[in-house]
């Protein structure tokens, strides 16, 4: 019986994801956000010398910044809009009267954005390796964990953020707190400015921002550089990864709890 339901789940998720991909392709604003915005942002910031004085070599810097902006725009912002749009059109309610489980509905809706996001990160890494001198990662496993964990975390945050997003237009405002905090973490977590020049108090606060563990793990995995600016080897990188992993885990647990408590499947009447 269990085997039956698990073979059914991928098919159901795929059905929702296919429809969602069609909707993404037909929505120009969402397509621009998904395909162009992260690249333009990173290219623009690099052009004005953003991160030149940071701790990271250029290849790792570009990959890390792009991963950060992709998680924010493509996964977080896009999905807040998509979940809210489907909720307000009563699509979520309709999907819930079928055989899909709640998790399958959320996953299927998220899948196209997630695929676009991960593909962009991978392509950027390839380009960085070929053109910008990205070295072999110090710990590739941590890079994968950073991306996968980041995706899970921001999908959950997007779903949770729909609780205070009344309609699609409001998503432009309701996503700002998370977006601003996370952009702050891009600046203060050693990516853009050297970790030494960030006041400890600021660093203490920003280490709890959701994007920070992703950036910490990426830096660590790509270059072996810890949040404090030290460089460690493969073995030591695991112990350095413990703290960001805990923060990431906490956000995921909190995200699931928030989802269960506040996520609404139909418009407020």
């Amino acid at each position, binding site marked *: 019986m269990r085997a039956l339901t698990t073979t059914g789940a991928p098919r*159901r998720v795929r059905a*929702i994801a*296919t*429809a969602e991909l069609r909707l993404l392709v037909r929505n120009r604003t969402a397509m621009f956000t998904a395909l162009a915005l992260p690249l333009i942002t990173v290219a623009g910031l690099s052009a004005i010398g953003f991160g030149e004085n940071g701790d990271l070599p250029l290849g790792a810097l570009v990959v890390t910044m792009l991963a950060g902006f992709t998680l924010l725009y493509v996964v977080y912002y896009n999905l807040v809009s998509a979940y809210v749009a489907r909720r307000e059109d009563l699509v979520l309610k309709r999907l*819930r*009267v*079928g055989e899909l*489980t709640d998790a399958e509905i959320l996953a299927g809706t998220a899948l196209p954005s997630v695929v676009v996001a991960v593909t962009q990160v991978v392509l950027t890494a390839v380009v960085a390796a070929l053109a910008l001198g990205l070295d072999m990662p110090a710990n590739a496993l941590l890079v994968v964990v950073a991306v996968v964990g980041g995706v899970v975390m921001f999908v959950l945050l997007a779903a949770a953020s729909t609780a205070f997003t009344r309609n699609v237009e409001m998503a432009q405002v309701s996503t700002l707190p998370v977006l601003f905090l996370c952009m702050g973490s891009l600046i203060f977590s050693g990516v853009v400015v050297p970790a030494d020049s960030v006041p400890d108090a600021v660093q203490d606060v920003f280490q709890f921002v959701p994007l920070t563990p992703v950036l910490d793990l990426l830096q660590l995995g790509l270059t072996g550089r810890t949040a404090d600016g030290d460089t460690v080897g493969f073995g030591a990188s695991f112990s350095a990864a413990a703290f960001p992993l805990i923060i990431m885990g906490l956000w995921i647990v909190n995200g699931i709890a928030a989802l269960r408590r506040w996520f609404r499947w139909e418009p407020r009447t």
Partner: protein
Amino acid sequence: MAEVVEVSDVRRSYGDYEAVRGVTFSVARGELFALLGTNGAGKTSTLEVVEGLARPSGGRIRVLGHDPYAGRASVRPRIGVMLQQGGFPADLTVTETAAMWAGTLTAPRPVAEALELVDLTHRAGVTVKQLSGGEKRRLDLALAVLGRPEVLFLDEPTTGLDPESRRNTWALVRTLLDDGVTVLLTTHYLDEAEELADRLAIMHRGRLVRTGTVAEVVASQPATVSFALPPSVPRERLPELAGALVVDDGNRVEVHTDTMQATLTGLLLWARDHDVELRELSARPASLEQAFLAVASSPEERDVEVAA
């Protein structure tokens, strides 16, 4: 167990407001049960908890022997649901919408067959936002029957349909009933209930006020015998008639009676014996509409008790 749907003393509250106040009914296999009621009577609220969309705040529900909320995984593959409002992404075509839904079902019909059933084949390539209200309703019905359900829940299936589409929908529902499908539907069209329902219930302010076959529900209402007396015959000369006397203005007389034959016999014998010509004589049994209006216009009894 012949009962496919069993609902006993079900309640549903939204905050302080209790929309469903202890509803009990059951639907047997192959039967069509209609929930009638005015807007806001609690029909949709009832249907949603039976479909397993929400947990009732009280009472017990079984669909095909399972709790539809907790046992969602066992129940859903065997039921089809048509919600009151579609819930389709506006930018997908009819076929894409149906294909998406088919991809989530265990044993779906071919998409083309489902569209054919509701006469939407010619609109297959059109996006949902270009469909008329009636066409959206039919798409909704197509999705509800796509999984070859054993039990079908239809929330106002023909609202917004033109007369021909309504007939087609009724014909489809009848075909499904012939195949042994069990149907629970809500409607505020009395003719729809009369046309399709094996049994029905009239819902009012969160309660089922009448339940039974159309004949049983109508039987709760008196038949009406009416006539006009000639000007020369004053009303006082009428004999004692079984039933309640309702006198219209002028000479028109209406009698509401539970025993139409006895009332008519008394009246007609009197008229023959006294050589009175009863003009505009008519005798008609109660209609479902009459039963419905009697319920809908009843005062807010017992609301105080609920609030207390």
